[in-house]
């Protein structure tokens, strides 16, 4: 019996390998797409964090003080002063054109007021319609304002005869010492790529699994597929999906190596746990692919659901917006997404380097996605034999 199954799997495998090279979609959809994604994301975000974003200055004061401020601002990490503008309206319009992400407005007689203790106003306008660009440039500008104000405070205090040892305590009585756990560089690529690349892998696993089963139903070859596997659905599925399991796991491991070894993103535990999580992610993707096409044994429906599920995984993982803060019913729903569990493993293992016992349940849940095909086993088999579903 077990020998029979083994041969059935072997026969299906041979059949599938032939099918795989018969049409370009199989290799394009796995190796092609993933290679594109790796190249795209790694070259797209090679800066890590957006540097030197264009901003403008409206310097109506034009004193040596304000020019010094502008020069100092120019040296910060995130902003690059590309324009000197002379009216507020023009600056606002440049912002609306998307040419600049922020501008600093220095009022008339700024230095004169400062020198005569009249506390002039410094205002900067930020475009939060592009949230990342806006908040990063705001951070640098407000930092520069704070430092400049500190410099003035120091000068005045010295003039008042306050001892240097006391000045620090007056200028800044409490200092904040910020630590970002696991990603001290606040690298933006770390946030995104660690989720986006596995999600892409997951999406393509889902789609291709649903496709390679569904296409048999559509082309009415599913009966032949099963007969070739001794009418064993198990052998048929294993033989059929094994090549893709292999390809996607290889692609996933390449992805892990790119992230942790090539890009040197934070990896605070053994890379082996990430390899394991990637393997389980591929398997759960395939299980879900079988589940979708079994539930809706029409090729187009199967891949539509797989595609929607795959793209929703980005949100469900919780990297863009934390899951804990999503509306309640959606929060519970995210548990149905393998990417959610993968993400939690990544946060615990790679980012925070927590003991692996914290991730144990997540590994088990990821593994248990493989039970899903059991629910559609009979439905899929009867669909494959009777071929009674529409083809389009």
């Amino acid at each position, binding site marked *: 019996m077990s020998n029979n199954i083994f041969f059935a799997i072997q026969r299906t495998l041979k059949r599938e390998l032939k099918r795989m090279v018969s049409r370009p979609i199989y290799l394009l959809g796995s190796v092609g797409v993933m290679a594109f994604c790796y190249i795209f994301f790694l070259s797209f975000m090679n800066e890590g964090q957006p540097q030197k974003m264009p901003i403008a200055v409206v310097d109506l004061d034009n004193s040596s003080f304000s020019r010094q401020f502008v020069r100092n601002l120019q040296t910060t990490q995130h902003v690059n002063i590309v324009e000197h503008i002379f009216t507020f309206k023009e600056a606002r319009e440049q912002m609306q054109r998307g040419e600049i992400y922020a501008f600093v407005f220095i009022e008339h007689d700024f230095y004169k007021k400062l020198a005569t203790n009249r506390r002039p*106003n410094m205002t900067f306008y930020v475009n939060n319609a592009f949230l990342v660009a806006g908040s990063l440039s705001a951070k640098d500008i407000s930092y520069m304002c704070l430092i400049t104000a500190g410099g003035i405070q120091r000068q005045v205090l010295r003039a008042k005869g306050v001892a240097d040892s006391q000045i620090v305590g007056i200028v800044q009585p409490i200092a904040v010492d910020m630590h970002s756990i696991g990603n001290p560089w*606040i690298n933006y690529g770390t946030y995104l790529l660690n989720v986006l690349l596995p999600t892409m892998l997951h999406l393509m696993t889902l789609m291709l699994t649903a496709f390679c089963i569904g296409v048999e139903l559509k082309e009415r070859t599913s009966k032949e597929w099963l007969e070739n596997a001794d009418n064993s659905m198990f052998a048929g599925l294993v033989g059929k999906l094994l090549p893709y399991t292999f390809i996607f796991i290889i692609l996933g491991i390449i992805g892990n190596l790119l992230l942790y070894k090539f890009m040197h993103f934070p990896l605070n535990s053994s890379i082996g746990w990430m390899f394991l999580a990637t393997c389980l992610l591929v398997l759960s993707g395939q299980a879900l692919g079988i589940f979708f096409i079994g539930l809706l044994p029409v090729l187009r429906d199967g891949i539509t659901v797989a595609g929607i599920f795959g793209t929703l995984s980005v949100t469900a993982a919780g990297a863009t917006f934390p899951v804990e803060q999503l509306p309640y019913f959606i929060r519970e729903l995210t548990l149905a997404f393998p990417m959610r569990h993968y993400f939690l493993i990544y946060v615990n293992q790679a980012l925070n380097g927590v003991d692996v016992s914290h991730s144990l349940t997540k590994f088990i849940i990821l593994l248990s996605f493989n039970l899903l095909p059991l629910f559609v086993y009979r439905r899929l088999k009867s669909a494959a034999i009777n071929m009674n579903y529409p083809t389009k």
Partner: protein
Amino acid sequence: MNDKKNKSSLLVNFKAIVKGIWQNFIHELKTTFHDRGVVIMFIIGPLIYPLLYSTLYLNETLVDVPIGVVDNSHSSFSRQIARNIDATENLKIYSNYSSLAEAQKAFENSDIHGIIYIPKNINYKLSNNEQATVSVYCDVSSFMYYRTIFQSCSYCILNMSKKIQIQRLSAAGITGASAAMIADPMPYQNISLYNAGGGLASFLLPGILVLILFQTLFFGITMLAGTSREENRFHLLVSGNAHRGRIFRVISGKAILYFLIYSVWIFYVLGIIPQLFNLPHIGNSVDIINLMIPFLLASIFFSMTVSVFIPNRETSMVLFMFMSIILLFLSGITWPQSNINGFWRTFAWIFPASHGIQGYIKINTMSADLQHVSFEYISLWIQAAVYMFTTSWAYHWQLKKATKEKDNA
């Protein structure tokens, strides 16, 4: 005499063209609405998807993120810090911990997303006019956590710092106007002109909405093309029999249908949804419509050009679903457009979606006029023209092949 004849033949010709377009339009209308898959793409997709995404990102900002306090000084001052932080909208004190190690354990269990550490010597330093330090540790698994914790804590501590500053100044004998001058010599203000709350949905969703229009249109058109190829005897896009008209009539018949369907969606997705979910909508509607005309035309002809290379009904879904995420990045909303390198910026230029998203955000969220988005607007018209040309060329090629195959057969 001759002139009259010419005129009447022109009229006949014109009538024939209109009739040809009309026939193709009706033919396409029937195929579209008989195909359940295409109906899902053209009707259900644009109807449901915006609702789904708007619901997902309903909460714009983080509220009451749990953080822990490790208070080693046990002073009234440290308790004041904790109370002030607890009082912010964004953070709440989940618990007090006796040591950093204990707080770390809670962090590992994901009970808390940040830790505030107040050292033992803080009271000593405060009463000795020295600079004291408060440490903040934050979770960076999501950019939102980092941003929220960083901003709220710095704001609270800066605020308390100011109070102490005034005390110390008066202790040094500086009071009144000169104390105010030293405490805040140049008051600075951070004003966000658009998306003042810094909400994630207000920032991300307008782009996603345009993307939904583009992607459903693309998948619908390529699915139709793949199907007609599968059903075609020679596996070509058009058959000599089905469309006896000329290329122009075939293409315009189809394009008009898609355009009409999607002009309804423009109003719903870009007009009603932002109002319904209170997303930014300060743009001039006439400008938005003005921008969306070339956007739709460019998207339709782009999809029709690509559809020539789509052999099967499902191919485009499998191969291009992942582009949804790529296009969101190429459009330059998450990663600033100024920082996209030349190669990918040129690559992004190919897709009508990137200009559509940029243009829509500038008009809708930032209240720009059409003249401010002239780059996007002109690019979209150029794309519409170029892709119309490529579509005609591709259809012409297919039709020629079809006649040739027919002759051979």
